[in-house]
């Protein structure tokens, strides 16, 4: 203080720090900055080295940095500040009575204030083999050295855990020349930081770089030979070879010392806003603590904690209030950012932008006019800006419309915040449609020339006619040029999740070879993260129709009836309708049905309007057993629940009826055997009548056959439901084979063209009978090709869904997790 007077330095208070890591040393720096002379400081470190930047271990593993480059405080820092570093000697014991700590080597150090900054321990999943040689964690420099030694020999690496840490390990190891497989328990990589859409993009990128990514993959055991790891095995039996297994399945706060000293601990060491534990002389900071219920695994919160801690230790208390965190993945060439709560919710609004051609996905979650979360992939330039708005809880209502385009675009404020104004500000030669190379000037010219709707623009100058991602821009131009109100609304979009129509989506699935739902959503710029209950079933159908044999059905995108293969009733039970081919049955079938009714106490059994029997009131748990019994009598699912072929009604026909002209019953059975199991845009009903008296009501069916002396009249597009529509006559054929071929071709045309949930009647009225006839008859090959595609699809789809369930597939759909019973009831 005073340079002249030499007073004896008072005995300084003794501060002991356990943990020479990021938080421990930062806390010391903060204290020194406030009052360099106050404490006599000793730091214990389990690692035999000076303080370094742990987060940069990833670049060290990847070969992008050396250890020297990541040291934060070298030995000179300790020396200059009079700090004693006890390295490579962990503290084993805290004696709160004596106020001392005892290290492994037996060193006893007294303290006035003690700071615990022991960080976290890697979580070792409790499976057999986790202690084999070659199973490593990723936490400190020794781990990195172990991995580098293994990588030198090349070979296979398995990383368990597809979070931040696991993916950085995988990246490093694959740059070091190992063949890497990432095994992740959850379906989405980095599911804590990323939503499904961004996780999908990340996965694609990593797979493109040669990594194998296994999600929803639960590691069951690590196999070894002579104590050394050789591979892993998953719950489902999959085996993966491995010379090294990296456990990156999570971390847990290192609370052992604190617990041993009876300090209050839950998940972490419980601290107050000044980082003080349940003992006023013991503080804790970093990943080992739990503050207001939260534990952190990132560095940003530690810096804030260290400031409050130092304020407290130097008697100028401030108080830490918890942190909002953001994440970036340190894998070169992958830009990814996430912050806050992006799980959304009822009062939240998702603003999504997808740009498939540039591989960009952005999602900002807004609640009450404020940003609460953000996920950015591919373009993270605005990450910090969003994060800043989020932390400051800034009201963004004024820039809401332009928010997703980023800071440069939105923060112009006022005029520029209006997307129309932003588009108006573009120069005439700015490109609007990248696919067709159409400039703004050209679009405006074509609007002025009379193209007053989106469709008209598309057909005149082609803008937005291909991938459609510039639709918004074209709509803005229409609004600017014609005035907001003059814009005629374009064709209806599939649902509010997309600006594409059903037709667009069906066409683009084929053109762009889109094969799974998340891919469709990404490529076609869906504005919701995982769609809604109206687009998901539609996409599932479009994909299974487009890629028979390849597409794997997505059960969770199906309506309950198609998921449980039975019709849900108003009381939550199900009805079961087995197929009765052409309305024919036998004593054996009737007996089996009667047995099921009795055995499962079904309250009702009824003859349906579709010529078969419906068993009511079956519980979801009993369904597989009911089906097993019906299967045993040779009966399969009647698909009474499906957007699928329902029934083929027949009349008795020439075999018995005095007016019958052909074997309508026989043909009906043959047609049903050909078409059952096929999924369609909507339900599909067929009937075959033996003569024009039409007892099977064939002329109100989707496909109806009326037999006549000279052959078969084929009728299409009938409907007996809400709005009755009689069929149109398609054509007349002479043989059963032709009738069946036409039937298959017509169904396939409907399957490939109609919108989901559009029955043949409205479809036919929308497209016109002439269009349908021209599709079928203009080219003589067409019928054969359509019918062949139908048969190909049937190769994969004509399977009885009941049989699989009866044999135990998807058990979880039919069983409860468990039952909860109060104990006293148990004893009663």
């Amino acid at each position, binding site marked *: 203080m005073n340079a002249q007077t030499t007073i004896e330095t008072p005995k300084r208070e003794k501060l002991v720090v356990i943990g020479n890591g990021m938080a421990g040393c930062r806390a010391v720096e903060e204290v020194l900055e406030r009052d360099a002379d106050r404490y006599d400081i000793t730091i214990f470190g389990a690692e035999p080295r000076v303080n370094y930047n742990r987060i940069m271990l990833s670049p060290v593993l990847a070969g992008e940095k050396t250890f020297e480059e990541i040291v934060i405080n070298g030995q000179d820092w300790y020396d200059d500040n009079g700090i004693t570093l006890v390295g490579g000697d962990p503290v084993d014991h805290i004696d709160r009575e004596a106020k001392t700590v005892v290290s492994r080597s037996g060193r006893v150090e007294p303290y006035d204030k003690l700071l615990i900054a022991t960080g976290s321990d890697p979580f070792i999943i409790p499976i057999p083999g986790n202690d084999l040689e070659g199973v490593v964690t990723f936490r400190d420099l020794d781990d990195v050295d172990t991995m580098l030694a293994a990588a030198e020999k090349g070979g296979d690496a398995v990383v368990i855990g597809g979070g931040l840490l696991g993916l950085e390990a995988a990246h490093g190891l694959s740059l070091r020349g190992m063949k890497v497989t990432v095994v992740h*328990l*959850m*379906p*989405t990589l980095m*599911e*804590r930081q990323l*939503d*499904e859409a961004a996780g999908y993009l990340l996965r694609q990128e990593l797979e493109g770089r040669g990594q194998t990514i296994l999600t*929803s993959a*639960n590691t069951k055991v690590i196999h070894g030979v002579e104590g050394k790891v050789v591979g892993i095995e998953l719950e489902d039996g999959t085996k993966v070879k491995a010379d090294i297994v990296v456990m990156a399945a999570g971390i847990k706060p290192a609370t052992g010392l604190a617990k041993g000293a009876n300090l209050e601990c839950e998940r972490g060491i419980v601290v107050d806003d000044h980082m003080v534990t349940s003992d006023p002389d013991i503080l804790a900071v970093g990943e080992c603590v739990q503050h207001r219920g939260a534990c952190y695994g990132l560095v940003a919160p530690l810096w804030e904690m260290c400031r409050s801690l130092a304020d407290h230790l130097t008697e100028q208390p401030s108080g830490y209030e918890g942190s909002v965190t953001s994440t970036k993945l340190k894998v070169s060439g992958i830009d990814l950012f996430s912050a806050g709560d992006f*799980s*959304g*919710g*009822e009062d939240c609004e*998702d603003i999504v932008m997808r740009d498939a051609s540039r591989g960009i996905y952005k999602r900002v979650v807004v609640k009450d006019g404020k940003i609460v979360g953000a996920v950015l992939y591919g373009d993270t330039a605005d990450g910090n800006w969003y994060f800043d708005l989020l932390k400051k809880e800034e009201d963004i209502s004024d820039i809401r419309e332009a928010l997703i385009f980023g800071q440069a675009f939105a923060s112009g404020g006022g005029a520029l915040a209006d997307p129309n104004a932003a588009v108006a500000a573009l120069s005439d030669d700015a490109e609007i449609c990248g696919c067709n190379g159409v400039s703004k000037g050209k679009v405006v010219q074509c609007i002025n020339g009379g193209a007053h709707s989106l469709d008209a623009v598309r057909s005149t100058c082609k803008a937005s006619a291909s991938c459609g991602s510039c639709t918004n821009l074209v709509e803005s131009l229409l609004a600017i040029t014609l005035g907001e109100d003059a814009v005629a609304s374009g064709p209806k979009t599939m649902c509010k999740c997309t600006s594409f129509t059903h037709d667009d989506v069906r066409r683009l699935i084929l053109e762009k070879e889109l094969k799974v739902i998340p891919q469709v959503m990404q490529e076609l710029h869906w504005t*919701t*993260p*995982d*769609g*809604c*209950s109206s687009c*998901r*079933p539609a996409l599932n159908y479009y994909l299974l129709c487009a890629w028979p044999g390849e597409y794997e059905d997505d*059960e*969770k*995108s*199906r*309506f*309950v*009836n198609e*998921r*449980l293969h039975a019709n*849900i009733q*108003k009381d*939550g039970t199900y009805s079961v309708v087995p197929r009765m081919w052409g309305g024919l049955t036998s004593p054996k079938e009737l007996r089996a049905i009667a047995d099921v009714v009795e055995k499962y106490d079904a309250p009702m059994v009824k003859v349906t309007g579709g010529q078969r029997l419906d068993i009511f009131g079956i519980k*979801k748990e009993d369904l597989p057993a009911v089906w097993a019994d019906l299967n045993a009598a040779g009966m399969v699912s009647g698909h009474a629940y499906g957007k699928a072929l329902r029934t083929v009604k027949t009349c008795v026909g020439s075999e018995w009826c005095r007016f019958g002209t052909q074997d309508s019953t026989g043909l009906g059975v043959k047609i049903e055997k050909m078409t059952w199991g096929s999924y369609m845009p909507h339900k599909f009903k067929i009937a075959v009548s033996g003569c024009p008296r039409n007892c099977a009501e064939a002329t109100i069916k989707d496909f109806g056959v009326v037999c006549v002396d000279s052959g078969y009249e084929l009728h299409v597009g009938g409907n007996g439901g809400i709005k009755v529509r009689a069929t149109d006559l398609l054509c007349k054929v002479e043989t059963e084979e032709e009738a069946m071929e036409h039937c298959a071709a017509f169904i396939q045309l409907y399957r490939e063209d109609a919108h989901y949930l559009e029955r043949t009647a409205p479809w036919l009225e929308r497209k016109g009978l002439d269009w349908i006839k021209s599709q079928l008859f203009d080219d003589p090959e067409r019928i054969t090709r359509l019918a062949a595609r139908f048969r190909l699809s049937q190769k994969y789809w004509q399977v009885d869904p009941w049989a699989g369930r009866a044999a135990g597939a998807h058990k*979880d*759909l039919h*069983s*409860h*997790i*468990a*039952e*909860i*019973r*109060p*104990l*006293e*009831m*148990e004893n009663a």
Partner: protein
Amino acid sequence: MMSATVGKWLDIGPTTQIEPGTARTLPVAGADEIAVFHTMRGEFYALVNKCPHKQGPLSQGIIHGDSVSCPLHNWRISLKSGEALGDDKGCTPTIPLKVDNGRIYLLREAVIPTGPFDEPAPAAQVAAA
């Protein structure tokens, strides 16, 4: 016959027993059945398995974002609050749930309702179904 350590939370098993994008059920003797949901984004929620409209089993609906569409008449119910969304009005009770170390826990007192005189909640046991 039970080692009846009655904690605040009831362990109902591992997270892996419910596939993302699906839900499963837990019947409760003497109370309403519970539906446990796992969203596509990996979150878990528990609600009484009854739609506020006409008691449709919500566990059987299509799950999207953090809402479920009821299988009976397509009301959309928030998994977070149990409220009907959009123009519909009504609310399904939610059950506090937490996930810890790969296991799902329900708040015991919300599962086993206390009696009319606010007696303490009886102990409960989870029996494998």
